[in-house]
């Protein structure tokens, strides 16, 4: 059972005619089980508790802010004429974008048979769900009367006597994000069931066994079940792949279908999707690099995995940069004065600092990934990815705020200033995200054991062929 590289942790070298191993060391099936299950089975360490306390405190901050908002009204935000889509929508688009990497890794890389996805897809999918949960919070409270948010649904209302307006992108958005959330949840849960069965079978404690037993739905690992399961997985992947692309496309319609200069552009759908994948991968890496070393998963999430993700960040970051340039070209080429003004104002107007942050974080910083040193050194990866996260938040800020603050009517122009509630909610949404993620790390299988074992089986097979 020897592998191409027995104990080294560097699998980034390309060897002609040979696939690089994705599971390192003298790892056996049981080792994979042990490595992953240990994360959940051993009691949480001080680091976890510290992180959880901070995250949970921030989550409570979010909860208090939402209660304050609902009780007082949306005036507690900085949203005011003409910028009625302030930070809540910025945060919504930011989180939805982050939520794109998980399903992309699970679905699109699965369809392209990229096997390096196997050890990162679980955590990335979990991240997707948590990011969508953060994203869904903001439009929910942004409707003003949050307890009436169900009016968005097409139900036969006895109070309103009317139906939703299906020609509005805002309604498409409701359908797109909720479908995306639901399908991602199904996909994530379905992928987890065999691993939950492993958790169940390893549980010594009766209650633990019962809880995981219920979640595992009685999974036995039957080959007949596996066959249907794999078919269902492939189908879900095939459905989720266009779904991922559609969601941020529809989110971009919220802007592109309107008449606001700087929003009304056909480049928005592809540009938003590239940006979403870009930010999603950056967030995956930001979480995965520390998690991998803290949870002892270096042999399963290898440097090669990280490097591949860095390459995707480089590619999508460059697409985003190209989109920024194209917007300016089209504004000049289109010869619409309002459009030209909108873009000049974006780069040189009162929000020049936001535009500068966006461009330097999103376009310049990922260019460092041209160097292998940056792609393979975990700490450098995290630093670049944090910059990308910041840059992508600013991208949404730039799009939402600069266009609205100076549109057709100069007498209505004004400068947007966030309130403390805006700040607290943005920070609090990270609390929600990290609370869920830390709970996930402790309670659920952070790596897809079944798929990683299948990858290992293939690796054994190849190793035998080469002998």
């Amino acid at each position, binding site marked *: 059972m020897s592998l191409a590289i027995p104990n080294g942790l560097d699998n980034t070298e390309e060897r002609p005619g040979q696939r690089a191993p994705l599971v390192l060391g003298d790892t*056996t*099936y*049981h080792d994979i*089980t042990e490595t992953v299950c240990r994360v959940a089975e051993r009691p949480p360490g001080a680091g976890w508790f510290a992180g959880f306390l901070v995250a949970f405190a921030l989550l409570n901050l979010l909860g208090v802010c939402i209660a304050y908002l609902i*009780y*007082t*009204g949306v005036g507690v935000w900085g949203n005011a004429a003409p910028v009625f889509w302030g930070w809540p929508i910025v945060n919504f688009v930011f989180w939805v974008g982050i939520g794109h990497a998980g399903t992309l890794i699970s679905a699109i890389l699965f369809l392209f048979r990229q096997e390096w996805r196997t050890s990162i897809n679980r955590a990335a999918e979990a991240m997707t769900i948590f990011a969508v949960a953060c994203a869904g919070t903001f439009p929910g409270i942004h409707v003003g*009367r949050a307890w009436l948010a169900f009016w968005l649904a*097409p139900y036969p209302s006895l109070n309103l006597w*009317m*139906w*939703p*307006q*299906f*020609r509005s*992108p805002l*309604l*498409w958005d409701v*359908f*797109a994000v909720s*479908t995306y959330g*639901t*399908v991602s949840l*199904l996909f994530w849960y*379905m992928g987890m069931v*065999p691993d939950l069965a*492993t958790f*169940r*079978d*390893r549980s010594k404690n009766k209650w633990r066994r019962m809880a995981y*037993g*219920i979640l595992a*739905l*009685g*999974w*036995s*690992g*039957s*080959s*007949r*079940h*596996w*066959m*249907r*399961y794999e*078919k*269902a997985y492939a*189908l*879900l992947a095939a*459905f989720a792949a*266009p*779904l991922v692309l*559609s969601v941020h496309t*529809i989110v971009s*319609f919220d802007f592109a279908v309107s008449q606001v200069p700087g929003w009304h552009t056909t480049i928005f759908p592809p540009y938003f999707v590239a940006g979403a994948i870009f930010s999603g991968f950056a967030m995956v890496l930001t979480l995965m690099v520390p998690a991998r070393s803290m949870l002892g998963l270096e042999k399963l999430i290898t440097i090669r995995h990280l490097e591949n993700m860095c390459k995707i960040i480089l590619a999508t970051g460059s697409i985003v940069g190209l989109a920024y340039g194209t917007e300016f070209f089209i504004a000049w080429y289109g010869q619409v004065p309002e459009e030209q003004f909108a873009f000049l104002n974006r780069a040189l107007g009162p929000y020049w600092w936001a535009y500068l942050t966006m461009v330097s974080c999103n376009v310049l910083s990922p260019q460092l990934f041209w160097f292998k040193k940056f792609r393979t050194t975990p700490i450098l990866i995290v630093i670049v990815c944090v910059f990308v996260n910041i840059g992508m938040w600013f991208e949404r800020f730039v799009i939402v705020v600069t266009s609205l603050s100076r549109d057709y009517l100069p007498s209505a122009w004004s400068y947007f200033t966030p309130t403390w509630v805006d700040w607290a909610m943005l920070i609090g949404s990270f609390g929600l995200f990290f609370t869920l993620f830390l709970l996930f790390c402790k309670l659920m299988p952070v790596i897809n*054991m*079944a*798929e990683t*074992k299948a990858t290992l*089986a293939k690796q054994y097979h190849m190793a035998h062929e080469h002998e």
Partner: protein
Amino acid sequence: MSNENSMSDDNNTKKVHGTVAEYESVDALLEACRRIRDAGFTKTDAFTPFPVHGIDTALGIKPTKLPWIALAGGATGLTIALLMQIWMNGIDYQYIISGKPYISLPAFMPVAFELTILLASFGAFFGMWALNGLPKFSNPIFTDPRFDRATDDRFFLYIDAKDDSYDQAGAEKLLADTGTEYINTVVEDDSPTQIPKFLITTLVTVIALSFIPALILARMRVTTSSQPRFHIFPDMDFSPARDAQQTTTLFADNRAMRPDVPGTIARGEMEEDLDYLTGIKMESLALQQVNKDRQLVALYPQDEKASSDTAAEQADAPEKSVMDTTPWVETNPVEITADFVKQGQAQFNIYCSTCHGRDGRGNGLVHQRAQQIMASSWIPPASMHQETLYADQYPDGKLFSTISNGIRKMPGYAGQIKVRDRWAIVAYVRALQQSQNASLNMVPESEQETIRTRKAEVERMLAEQAEAEKKKEEERAKQAEQAQ
């Protein structure tokens, strides 16, 4: 095979479900699968920690019909989405959006796409569990003591007792030849199958408790009490919106009714030309060029201080105020008809007569009252019947502007009286002025006789009144004498 012996007692009493064998590697399992398939067993299964490729042929598993379920789900989603949108927006509640057809398929595509994906995913997800017969928490194979490793690193092969060729000894013998080290008989699981009672109790209690806050709120909202009823969102129930004459804390001047923004014209009022709206000949004004901005500002005096400031600034030409240099519209731009003048009369009587009096002599009720209480800051309203206000010295446009913007104590009436009505008042004032200096031959001949008769009647009436007064006076004087 020690386990087998130790469990043989149980096996005699419990129902046998089948036989299971354990393997260490995928290759060994696949080899064993082929062996039992070739031996004619069909009710077989393998249990593996990950999907093993090639096992479907090795075991003879038929392809699944799951894709059809997903297809059916997708088709249902598409149909529901299209019917829903066509019914809701195209038929039952029609929205007019940019003049597009009510049933506009391109706009319905996004939701149709999402619902297709959603229901197809439901089909794949729930269809898979249904076809697999899961969730099923009680499975005889779980009774096997080593079976926990089926989700870890071991591979199990299972022959079901329901298979036609199954007999326990034969199956064991066949499996023993396939390189396994562990063979066991799978028996009935006799552990309790009910959901533990305390779980149900806990669940029911939690659900019941979760209703309590909502019930308390509902009770507070519907029951009677001596206190004012509880409001969850008081500022939503009691809007800070006010009626026109009320006060509000939302604005510094505490007025709920907001004055016009200076220099603005309401929507829909720009349809007429500026001369008509302001009473000023705009073209001539533009030609004057001198202090144009200052003139325009001065035309709309917001308060006395502002206008006095302007006046002070013009100290170099004190005798010529803006009011004199402005090129006023000379004649009423509206065609004068009897109806139009009557309309002006009605408006004059409503808005102007309170101060200026119905006859325009400046002796209205407000003025009388001001004299009665001897109001010190009161400036008497102008009489319409002075030569400086006649059309040759005070053009129609200037009069219109005064009505609109006010003068001295008089406020502007632009907010209350419509533009056309203000011009009507101008027309009526002109008629009023003429009425005091008119000669009989200004009236059409057909009307002259009527007026003569009427004049005679009035004169006679006045004479009678004077007579009656005189008599009363005399009687009063007599009574006074008698009393003395």
